[in-house]
């Protein structure tokens, strides 16, 4: 998508004042991108999307195994959806089944204490009981599937390899974390502003059903 198209489409959606603001933001972003091109941690752009704003200071949530997201997703470049395989099909992203972990770790890094702990679970036919980091109240119906459809699969120009940028809208830069931290507020204001900016549905019952 061309920058002019982007601006045109934004013009249709928002008032003049915010067009100015978003233009400024866009230019700032482009300049920033240009400057950081050589840095490896550069974030790819998600086309046709206005990332939600808002931050949250998450607590440290201890986990039964200190799962290193950084080793998997960043250093080894594994796609988020390889393990969170249900995200594209279901309302929940799903914690990967233990069998999936063992698919690799019956041969990889078997000398590491964390893997040994995992193997112990597997041999006892148990799954680790993870502590939930990201959650919304029971009266909120959030679906991963619809969000991935909108921002990844039905999004022209979006490369599925960059899906972690879409995940990061709500989950932060998990690639740089070991166990997940909550860094976005995930409250209604956060959701609604993003829905407004991206022309998501605004009916109450879309989420509260």
């Amino acid at each position, binding site marked *: 998508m061309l920058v002019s198209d982007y601006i045109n489409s934004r013009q249709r959606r928002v008032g003049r004042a915010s067009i100015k603001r978003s233009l400024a933001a866009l230019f700032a972003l482009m300049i920033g991108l240009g400057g950081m091109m050589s840095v490896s941690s550069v974030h790819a752009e998600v086309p046709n999307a206005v990332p939600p704003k808002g931050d949250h200071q998450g607590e440290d949530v201890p986990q039964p195994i200190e799962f290193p997201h950084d080793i998997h997703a960043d250093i080894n470049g594994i796609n988020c959806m390889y393990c969170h395989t*249900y995200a594209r*099909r279901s309302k929940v992203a799903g914690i990967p*089944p233990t*069998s999936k972990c063992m698919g690799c770790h019956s041969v990889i890094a078997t000398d590491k204490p964390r893997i040994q702990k995992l193997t112990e679970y597997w041999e006892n036919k148990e*799954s680790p009981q*993870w*502590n939930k980091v990201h959650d919304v109240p029971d009266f909120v119906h959030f679906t991963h599937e619809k969000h991935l459809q909108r921002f990844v699969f039905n999004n022209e120009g979006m490369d599925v390899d960059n899906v972690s940028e879409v995940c990061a809208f709500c989950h932060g830069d998990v690639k740089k974390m070991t166990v997940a931290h909550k860094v976005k507020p995930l409250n209604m*204001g956060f959701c*609604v502003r993003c829905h407004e900016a991206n022309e998501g549905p605004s009916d109450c019952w879309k989420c509260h059903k």
Partner: protein
Amino acid sequence: MSGNDINRRDFLKFMGLGGVGAATLTGCDMPTTVTLEEGKEKVVSYLAPEEYVIPGIGVWYASTCQQCPSGCSIHGRVREGRVLKVEGNPESSMNGTGLCQMAHAGLQGHYNPDRLSKPLVRKGDKLTEASWEEAWALVEEKLGARTAWLTGTISGHQAVLLDDLKKTLGSNKSYAYEAINNGVGEALNKAVLGEATPRYRFDKAQSVLSFGADFLGTWVSPVHFTKEYAQKFRTGERGVLMVVEPKMTMTGANADFWVPARPGTEGALALGIANVLLHKHQVDGRVLPKAALDVIAKYSLAKTTDVTGVRSEAIVKMANYLRNNSPSIILSGPSAHEHANGSQNAAAAMLLNILLGNVGKTIESSGEMPVKDIAARPASSKAIVDFVADVGRGDIDAVVITGTNPVFTAPKALGVEDKLSQVPFKVALSMFIDETSALADVVLPLASSYEDWGTSVAAYQPHDKVIGVQQPLMQPLYKETKGLGDVLLSLLKSKGVDGYAGFDDYYAYLRKAFSDMPASVKQGKSDKAFWSAALQSGLINVGAASGSIKAKAPKVQAVGYEANSDYPFHLVPSARQGLWDGRHANIPWMQEAPDQVSKVFWDSWAEIHPKTANALGVKEGDFIRIESDQGVIETQVYIFKGVHPDVVAVPMGQGHENYGRYATGVGVNPLKILSPTTDESTGELANHATRVRVAKTGAKAPFPRLGGSEQQAGRLLVGTVTADVFRKTEGGDHVA
């Protein structure tokens, strides 16, 4: 939302600030109120998931509802290994996509916190938790030739196993008892039509006259009848529904013409209507034997009015409707059947069917079940009378009780509790402790119907003959529960019965039983394909109903009425769609759901006519004392015109003394004060034959009733016009 310390006042302050500032969503950004704390809940992944399992996405499996004996087919939505919702099975000719509220609420029985998870064994006065081995050793030891089986409705392969077990033990004693049953009707149908449960074709009928058969609420197969009735009678070509009953039921509330007759005189009313048809409408009486015509001749309008208390105009009107809207169906049900002369009432109603030529037109043969050993076995209330008599004779050393709670549902005067105490060894197979299982020596925890295998064959088969397949919708919630089929099979194996040693469990037995079904049923499918198809659809269609039906006119006798000055009122223990015979009183949704007619919830009530209320000097919510020769109950009154002035109607189902946290201590049980009368011809319990006297107690309390008023109070909730105005508009042919 725990640990949330914002209160309403702070919330409003926040909202106020949001309103003043430019941002409009300030209230939605309060992190502690609308998000959850991190790390407080667990999330557990699958160890190794099945390929088709996707968390968050439900898969629907077919099964059969066991909430009442109608046998509706269901689809259950299963997600993450839990059944979350049931809906009607669209493939079912019985209920289609429809289900009643009891089916929908069944999950609250399954997930009920009062469910038994371990076997209980009596030690001294108390039932204490025991290992399955300990409980089972007692059961194996004590069951023998003098063992009785006191059950609810049992059908399908469980009934086959029970038959084999009885044969092995040398016991012929089994008692299938249901408080809500059609025993009198079935006996009469068998005698007159040759089959106990014919098909009723509401779709072919132009009018229906029901003497107390609440076919839209609790009678025989209500979901199916509702579906067929709604299609035929409430869309397009409209039929006429007439209902004669002492207390307005769901069916009565839907009637075009509702008539309260004196309880027990329904037969006289039917004969009076026959008289009008014969004499005023010149219906050909030659289809009836002379004896019947002679009895009918006695019921002139004056005499009928004298006996039934129904105005002569109403009798003529019903006869006119039947004559002008042919063919018709005449039904009779509990409030006509459950009297000393119940079979007479049923016979008189059937006589009308024969006179009007309905048999063969709207009442058809339902044909024979080709797989004979699993044919439907409807339960009756005579069973509990027989059980009590047999215990009294000292014929019974041990009893196995399952699917029934007679200590609660049988009239107290029968002395079921006392008789049970005379049986040396009692085993209850139950999901819950109830009034009956609390008396047992051993209680084995039963799996719920959503955890168990089974087959069931409904007594009423609307079109083709169908075997309902019940498959588990989820793994058992409690490891130590067992299904009835598995318990029966274990007993057969432990007694060393030939042919059962090879089956690991009831599932294995069912697989074999399905393989052994006749070729006509399997229709050329391989064993595996037949099994898969049965699980997929939840139904096995075993062939179209065929066969002809012919009526042999029943003998009828004169039906009279005797007033009782000591006990001037009739007690009607009506069936409440929702609580059924009381088995669903431990389901909070069923307590919470208001009664369809009175709108009372979480309690009992006595329905009385405004005239009666005036005479007693009571207002809605006042307590009255209802006294029979067997005892007293006290409850609040609901004043309603849909009750006969001589009737006090108290629905059954409430008044549990020991049925878990939701049911115990709620309301009163009218069955406790019933006289132990039986129908003279069939021996079925006559639960509507009790006479009572009623007095004001003076106590008052808030009345738990939804919708406080029967009046519109000028609010025009339902618009009305006078007949004159209506005639001048679309209702008449002479437009002004």
